[in-house]
């Protein structure tokens, strides 16, 4: 029966050209959408590597005339005053690259004979605890580390795996990036840009690196007791204005910042899903229409097949199979084009997402086509041969 249907569909190839084209285009669109969504879904599911909940970000402005020692003393006094507040659990000073802030600093070096490209964050010795950073090796740097021969740095897992994949540990090794530093710890995955950010090599430098340029930290992350932001925001603001003698203090909720940082990916995903939804509805309605018309034109053939001994189930199966054959032809050609993307590495996304995208698009289209083909085919199977054979 299958070879018979193949032959029939081949001979009807012109009539089925539009369905074939519709399936092919739908597959290509769905393949792209699914690949994009699946890729971002996996990135979303991978951990940020730190805790942003119940935390606020603060930006303030120190007087440019203050010397570095005064700045350090003021920073510590502010920190202690904040920690004295009952709703404040942890405080850490950070440099110009803050989580979800949208800015990126990057540096590269081949001083050690290997090209190392890493993003940079500048943080203090409290950052590891305040942001609850997950460590996979070593520890966060301390005051003692800052007095050592080499300035301390902490790197993330991606740094270790990309540049030193075969080394058991890189803790206590010297890294020649932005000067010579000693690596004291390795964090787990750390994505500070958004949930959808890729894991990229990252190095945490201490404040002293910024102080060299006369640019002390002017941002903080303050972790609060749960649900205390509304009560504590004003006292914190007043404290900071009083300490810096400057009203230029900005406070923001890091959870809201995270949502904002995710938007550049979430919005396209929603738009693509809506477009794909309409596309699928369009395909479903189109298929319904085409199948009802085709089956209406083939009423005599249905009557004939039933007269020749086809059971209602065989008639239903035949029409569903016919549509599936055209669909599979479209999917086959679409898959041929789609697999070129990972094979030729046309995009900077791991190949597995394109293969998942192909599978998801094929399954979606097959499901929709089968559902849409079933109803007209079932109706065709109920036709009475005596009636339709005499319509000609």
């Amino acid at each position: 029966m299958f070879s018979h249907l193949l032959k029939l569909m081949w001979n009807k190839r012109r009539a089925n050209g539009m369905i074939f084209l519709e399936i092919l285009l739908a597959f290509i669109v769905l393949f792209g959408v699914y690949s994009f969504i699946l890729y971002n879904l996996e990135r979303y599911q991978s951990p940020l590597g730190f805790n942003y909940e119940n935390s606020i970000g603060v930006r303030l402005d120190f007087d440019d005339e203050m010397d570095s020692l005064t700045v350090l003393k003021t920073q510590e006094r502010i920190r202690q005053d904040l920690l004295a507040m009952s709703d404040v659990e942890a405080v850490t000073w950070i440099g110009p690259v803050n989580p979800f802030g949208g800015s990126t600093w990057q540096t590269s070096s081949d001083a050690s004979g290997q090209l190392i490209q890493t993003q940079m964050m500048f943080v203090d010795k409290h950052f590891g605890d305040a942001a609850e950073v997950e460590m996979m090796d070593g520890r966060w740097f301390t005051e003692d580390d800052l007095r050592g021969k080499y300035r301390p740095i902490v790197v993330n897992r991606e740094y270790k795996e990309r540049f030193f994949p075969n080394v058991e540990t890189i803790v206590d090794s010297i890294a020649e990036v932005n000067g010579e530093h000693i690596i004291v710890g390795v964090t787990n995955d750390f994505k500070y840009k958004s949930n959808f950010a890729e894991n990229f090599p990252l190095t945490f430098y201490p404040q002293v690196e910024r102080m060299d340029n006369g640019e002390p930290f002017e941002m903080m992350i303050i972790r609060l007791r749960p649900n205390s932001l509304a009560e504590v925001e004003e006292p914190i603001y007043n404290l900071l204005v009083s300490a810096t003698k400057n009203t230029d203090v900005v406070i923001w909720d890091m959870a809201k910042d995270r949502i904002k940082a995710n938007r550049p990916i979430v919005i396209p995903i929603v738009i693509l899903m809506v477009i794909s939804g309409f596309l699928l509805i369009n395909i479903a309605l189109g298929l319904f229409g085409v199948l009802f018309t085709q089956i209406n034109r083939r009423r005599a053939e249905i009557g004939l097949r039933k007269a020749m001994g086809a059971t209602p189930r065989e008639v239903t199966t035949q029409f569903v199979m016919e549509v599936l054959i055209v669909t599979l032809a479209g999917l086959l050609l679409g898959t041929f084009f789609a697999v070129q993307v990972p094979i030729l590495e046309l995009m900077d996304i791991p190949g597995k997402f394109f293969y998942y995208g192909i599978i998801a698009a094929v399954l979606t289209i097959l499901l929709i086509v089968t559902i849409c083909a079933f109803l007209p085919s079932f109706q065709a199977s109920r036709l009475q041969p005596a009636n339709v054979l005499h319509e000609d």
Partner: protein
Amino acid sequence: MIEIKNVSKAYRTDTIETLALQKMNLSVPSGEFLSIMGPSGCGKSTLLNIMGLIDEPSEGTVTLAGQQITDYNGTRIARFRNEQLGFIFQSFHLINDLTVVDNVELPLLYRKVGSKERRRLATEALAHVGLSNRSTHFPNQLSGGQKQRVAIARAIVGRPNIILADEPTGNLDSRMGDEIMDILLKLNEDLGTTIVMVTHDERMAKKTHRLVRLSDGERVS
């Protein structure tokens, strides 16, 4: 053997009931070539459809090859039609998107017959009606007489015991009609196939073993 007992057929709409057959009784012994004649609308085709199990009687029973069919379900009726009955229609009803030989294979698709065996039987049936050289043609490349010969090949390919022909020469000129009639007569003689033929052509009817006339849904002779 075909046995029609007290068969009536009524077509109902919301307001009208039309009686196409009334208490019809008819017996066709195995191997007989029977023709049915009558004016348009007298119930000839309805009777043929009921004999061919593609329509159900409103009342009465149909017995084919010793089996009373009235109580059969749809699938069983379909299987019975496939194995025991062959159909020939006035308008041929060939599938234009299939070649001649694929059209002839059609009844065998609904049996467990392998593709090679299907092809062999279809080729044999085409040889029987003298169309071996047209097997790869499409129906729209054939004349009316050739199309009807393909339809006959399709009707006999499954070796049915009974062939039901609804005005098989109705769309053909007299020469082609004679050719088709000769093939049917030969089938009846050589293979002993029972044939029931509806016709408007008295000349064709006279060539058969027996003629039954209908009028207003009733048998008049």
